[in-house]
């Protein structure tokens, strides 16, 4: 007999050591998230996966599942707060979807669709974040970085390289690469790295591959993000 908690009234089984979001996604229930990735250690920074556990709000990616927990996720209150967080991410960077190669495959965009975000609402910061096109095969467009640290974790924990890291503090937090010049070309980054394919937005992009998939056939044109749940990464790569 497996242990269960309830998510919006439905029983969700879990194994010891699983977090709420891990168990939920495994059981096919979507909880919005950006910095969570099933292959990596939880980070807990984007806060989109915040749920109510027995009435208390907490990030479901860092909260261990426990027998009998009552978890609420798809509520208007939580979704409206998640929408506000998504809007914050949009105004913090420069997210111009029409000219972004990742549009249609972007998790930030797809999450915003899911949350019915019609506008970024806040005043835009329009930060100045120059591109790094130094690498022969990849380019970095920092304008779109949401500081989820997935590339940091992938490079460190899977590739064993530490190509990426977060630097700065507060609103000046930003992604850096492991080179004195600050340029990707001067790191040991390679196209085969896990870090090369893990970015949920359009920061780490292969060169010479422009808008290869026509509109209508991209990942999230076909289905909304909640239909992919945690298998979306695998399906995309098929």
């Amino acid at each position, binding site marked *: 007999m497996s242990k269960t908690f309830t998510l919006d009234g439905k029983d969700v089984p879990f194994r010891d050591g699983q977090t709420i979001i891990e168990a939920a996604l495994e059981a096919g229930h979507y909880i919005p998230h950006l910095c969570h990735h099933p292959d990596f250690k939880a980070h807990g920074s984007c806060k989109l996966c915040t749920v109510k556990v027995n009435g208390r709000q907490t990030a479901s990616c860092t909260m261990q599942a426990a027998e009998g927990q009552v978890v609420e996720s798809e509520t208007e209150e939580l979704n409206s707060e998640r929408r506000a967080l998504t809007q914050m991410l949009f105004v913090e960077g420069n997210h*111009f979807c029409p000219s972004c190669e990742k549009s249609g495959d972007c998790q930030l965009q797809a999450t915003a669709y899911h949350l019915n975000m019609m506008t970024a609402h806040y005043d835009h910061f329009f930060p100045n974040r120059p591109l790094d096109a130094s690498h022969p095969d990849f380019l970095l467009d920092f304008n779109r970085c949401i500081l989820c640290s997935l590339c940091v974790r992938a490079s460190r924990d899977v590739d064993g390289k530490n190509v990426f890291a977060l630097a700065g503090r507060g609103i000046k937090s930003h992604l850096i690469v492991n080179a004195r010049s600050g340029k990707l070309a001067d790191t040991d980054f390679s196209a085969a790295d896990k870090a090369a394919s893990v970015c949920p937005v359009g920061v780490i992009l292969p060169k010479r591959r422009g808008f290869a998939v026509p509109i209508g056939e991209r990942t999230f044109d076909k289905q909304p993000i909640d239909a992919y749940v945690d298998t979306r990464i695998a399906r995309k790569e098929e």
Partner: protein
Amino acid sequence: MDAPAKKKLRLATATLAGCFGCHMSFLDIDERLFDLVELVEFDRSPLTDIKEVGPCDIGLIEGGLCNAENVHVLRDFRKHCRILVAVGACAINGGLPAQRNPIPLHEILSEVYLTEPGLAHSGIPNDPELPLPLNKVHPIHEVVKVDYFLPGCPPSGDAIWKFLTDLLAGREPELGHALMHYD
């Protein structure tokens, strides 16, 4: 016997710093334009050639704010329209024109009119007829209160139709996954 004609709502549209793509997409509602004109009367719009906006129920704004004239038109719309709608990426987040924002305006003007080949040495245009550019391109909600947002670059004809029919029927506009696009 005909039912008494329902009072038509007045609709105005304008393009600020945009490419008219949203207006082109508006025309993509095709034969549904006939249905639309049963419901609305057009005020200022490229479709009517009326130059000044009058009292309206709905104003559709395409494009962001790039210069002083954009601000005048937008304020005029806000003043005259009961419901103001930001249509398309540029109105909503500045869009393509706003990609100049990280670069100081004086650098842009110098490069275009003073230093680089092309218009170089022609001097920066200073005719009083020309609107002056703003330091940064702004989405319209940063300058006036906006009631609704219809994203897309452009929003498809179907999205515009769905949005307008919802609004005209007094429903909260809802696009759903198929019509919701930022690109």
